[in-house]
């Protein structure tokens, strides 16, 4: 299986090259037979890469430690579940996994378009095969081959890092990668539109659901990563503005911008070049994120010149993509002229445009902060870095502005908002927002930016709520339906719009949860068994936690545990007993010397009680001594309001995105969009 897999990877290279050539030549010469052959190569590479992936999993399952990748990321004691997930545990497997998903989406795109959109398909296939070729070349020639052998067979592997032995860590990378790779399809269609010259709104309609799919996976992938950090890293946070986190955020930001600006193109025929640019930028950022998450370039640029080949290959490829796209956009500029012009500052176009500006500005700021060590080293000769303080300072104002626009965009009129439109739609919601902020301020919430966020959140929710209510009521009246069926039909009739509003609600929930961060409370205390600590909740009430004692365990080979110390705590809030909690520290047999902190979390809809065992006398635990007089332990106790809302927002977001993506003909928007383009007399072309 492993030999077969390695062979399959090698065979896939000429086939991918062949597919690239067939696609482009078939498209250029309009040769249907060549295009048909090109389509077949897509299916073949998928089969081959699937075989290669199975081969890697096979090396893990059979403990083939003569393979470099297995020796470094597995050990005989690793649970089978994590052995399978070994495919995406490290850089080498991750790149293969990326390629596998790319092949999978290529097959889906080719298969679903086998009888339609033939004018795009040759170039779509050509573009996808270029990407496949790139990843195959990287895997085979950039010193990251997962089938590389060590030259000797270790008795056991180094073991998987315990931080990665967590449920969220097994689903976080695949989700993120699904998001990254799903975006290759819109990119391929965009390139096909440029190559074929069919630059009307057709390619946008074809890729709409793909973009939403990618966006949805990215959003969930990012939130899963936050959940992993929160549960596994033990410092109580969920976002640290780490380069790797930032890298995954960047394409999501530009994809969000695109999801909005594309609506201006659909309904007003504007921003064509801008949208093309956003698609290319998002795609390049997905490649950049893949590269950054698995290379460690930023943190270790001057400490370790690890694998510079791969850095140059990736940077070269990204530059090539940007160059080709830029040349094609310039070449096709006459076809990308704007059909309209913005008429008023106070209009929906304008709201969308500002949304785009802010999202792109955020992308820029995050990228700047992330790459600062590299840039300053290159230009100033010394490295300068910025931490979370920088990112929070810059991005909080952007976030608040985006939140505000979320309430404005849906109800402000297209083209030119009249005074009446503004009054009718915004007077009451503004009042609601201001009242909410005032009430919270008087209730003692004295953090300006947070109260502002809460107020704007109330404003947005009110606007969206009124939209739903008006739509439902109108439908109920016209169709004579009950409110519930009317609501259902309303949403199903224009899924993108109402699904989008539900996603907005999710973002409001998310931002509200973020804005509660200033109220996170933390104390650290050293306790003897029998002693108690108290921590006050910022929302009222006092938790009392009593340390009951330490239970230890050591040399549990089956579970790969060298030692384990579990501190038991009984908990109560204002005298009312709560379920007991147990905070834990573990040492693993493999990798030798590695430890992990297992936090205790009591999550409620309003706040989390979060307990970590910060320090115990590990020397004694390791020695197997269990002396009750030596059980002093240091704990960190935290109360974190609204953290559950973050996870809840992922759920709401999923519902909204699923409604938006639900398959089924939605011919109406396309008809309307071309109609709008035709209807509106186009003034002098401006070229965006």
């Amino acid at each position, binding site marked *: 299986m492993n030999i077969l897999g390695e062979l399959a990877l090698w065979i896939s290279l000429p086939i991918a090259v062949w597919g690239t050539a067939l696609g482009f030549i078939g498209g250029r010469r309009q040769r249907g037979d060549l295009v048909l052959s090109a389509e077949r190569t897509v299916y073949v590479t998928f089969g081959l890469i699937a075989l290669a992936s199975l081969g890697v999993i096979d090396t893990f399952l059979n403990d083939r430690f003569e393979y*470099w990748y297995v*020796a*470094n990321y597995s050990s005989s004691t690793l649970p089978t579940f994590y052995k399978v997930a070994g495919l995406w*545990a*490290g*850089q080498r497997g991750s790149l293969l996994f990326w390629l596998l998903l790319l092949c999978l989406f290529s097959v889906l795109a080719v298969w679903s378009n086998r009888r339609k959109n033939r004018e795009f398909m040759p170039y779509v296939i050509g573009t996808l095969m270029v990407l496949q070729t790139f990843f195959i070349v990287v895997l085979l020639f950039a010193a990251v081959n997962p089938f590389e052998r*060590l030259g*000797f067979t*270790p*008795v*056991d592997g*180094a073991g998987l*890092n*315990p*931080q*990665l032995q967590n449920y969220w860590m097994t689903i976080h990378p695949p989700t993120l990668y699904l998001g990254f790779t799903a975006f290759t399809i819109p990119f391929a269609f965009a390139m096909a539109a440029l190559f074929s010259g069919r630059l009307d709104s057709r390619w946008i309609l074809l890729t709409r659901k793909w973009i939403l799919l990618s966006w949805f996976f990215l959003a969930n992938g990012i939130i899963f990563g936050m959940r992993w950090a929160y549960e596994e*890293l*033990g*410092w109580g946070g969920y976002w640290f503005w780490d380069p*790797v986190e930032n890298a995954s955020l960047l394409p999501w930001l530009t994809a969000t911008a695109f999801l909005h600006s594309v609506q201006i193109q659909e309904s007003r025929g504007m921003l064509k070049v801008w949208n093309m640019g956003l698609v290319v930028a998002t795609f390049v950022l997905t490649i950049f994120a893949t590269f950054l998450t*698995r290379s*460690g370039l930023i*943190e*270790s640029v*001057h*400490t370790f010149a690890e694998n510079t080949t791969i850095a140059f290959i990736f940077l070269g490829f990204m530059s090539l993509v940007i160059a080709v796209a830029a040349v094609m956009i310039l070449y096709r500029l006459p076809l990308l002229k704007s059909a309209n*012009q*913005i*008429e*008023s*500052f106070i209009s929906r176009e*304008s709201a969308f445009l*500002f949304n785009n500006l*802010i999202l792109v*500005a955020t992308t820029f*700021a995050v990228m*700047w*902060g992330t790459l*600062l*060590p590299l840039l300053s080293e290159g230009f100033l000769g*010394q*490295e*300068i*870095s*910025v*931490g979370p303080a*920088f990112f929070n*300072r*810059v991005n909080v*104002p952007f976030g608040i502005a985006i939140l505000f626009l979320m309430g404005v965009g849906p109800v402000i009129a297209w083209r030119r908002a009249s005074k009446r439109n503004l009054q009718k739609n915004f007077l009451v919601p503004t009042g609601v927002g201001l009242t909410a902020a005032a009430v919270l301020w008087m209730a003692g919430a004295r953090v300006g930016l947070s109260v502002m966020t809460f107020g704007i959140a109330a404003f947005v929710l009110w606007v969206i709520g009124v939209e739903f209510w008006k739509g439902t009521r109108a439908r109920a009246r016209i169709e004579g339906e009950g409110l519930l069926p009317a609501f259902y039909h309303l949403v199903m009739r224009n899924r993108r719009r109402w699904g989008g509003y539900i996603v907005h609600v999710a973002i409001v929930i998310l931002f509200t949860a973020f804005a509660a961060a200033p109220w996170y409370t933390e104390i*650290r205390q050293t306790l003897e068994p029998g002693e108690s600590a108290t921590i006050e909740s910022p929302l009222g009430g006092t938790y009392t936690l009593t340390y009951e004692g330490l239970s230890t365990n050591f040399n549990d080979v089956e579970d790969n545990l060298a030692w384990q110390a579990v501190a038991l705590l009984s908990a109560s809030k204002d005298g009312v007993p709560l379920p007991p909690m147990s905070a834990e520290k573990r040492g693993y047999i493999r*990798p*030798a*010397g*590695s*430890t*992990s902190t297992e936090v205790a979390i009591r999550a409620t809809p309003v706040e989390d009680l979060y307990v970590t065992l*910060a*320090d115990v006398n590990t020397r004694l635990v390791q020695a197997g001594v269990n002396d009750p007089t030596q059980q002093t332990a*240091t704990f960190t106790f935290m109360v974190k309001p609204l953290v559950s809302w973050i996870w809840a927002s992922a759920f709401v977001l999923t519902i909204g995105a699923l409604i938006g993506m639900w398959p089924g003909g939605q011919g109406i928007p396309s008809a309307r969009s071309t109609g709008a383009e035709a209807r509106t007399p186009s003034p002098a072309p401006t070229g965006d």
Partner: protein
Amino acid sequence: MGSNRRFMIGLVGVAAVVTWLVWTGVSDTMTYFLTPSEYVERLDADPSFRQVGVRIGAVLVPESYEQGAGELEHHFLVHDADDPSVTFPVRYVGVLPDTFNDAPDMVTETVIEGRFDEDGVFDATVLLTKCGSRYEADPEQLRAMNEREHPAG
């Protein structure tokens, strides 16, 4: 055309705000990010640099960890990744990250923030250690580990 001009003003306004936020953000929160060698060089050239808080990217010296006298007080050594002879002691008070691992054969990259105290000990207020998925032992280390743990094999 009036709305167009207003647009340009809005655009320039947004760009200006972004630039201002990024610029002041960087200048208020930036720290120097140095290797131990670079840091020692800077200190030799300019002793007042001792007062400046810095961020150091270094490697934890294996088996150098010692528990300090105070609560959650930790002592260890770090060295330059490229030049192991450049090394200095670090004191850190706080919770050790899980990825802090001073076992032999482990390459634990650390980022510390702080400054030297009078005794020549680097007083770290921040300690980050590199997430495990990104350190990859080289084959020789793997071989050494295997030979140590399985002498017969």
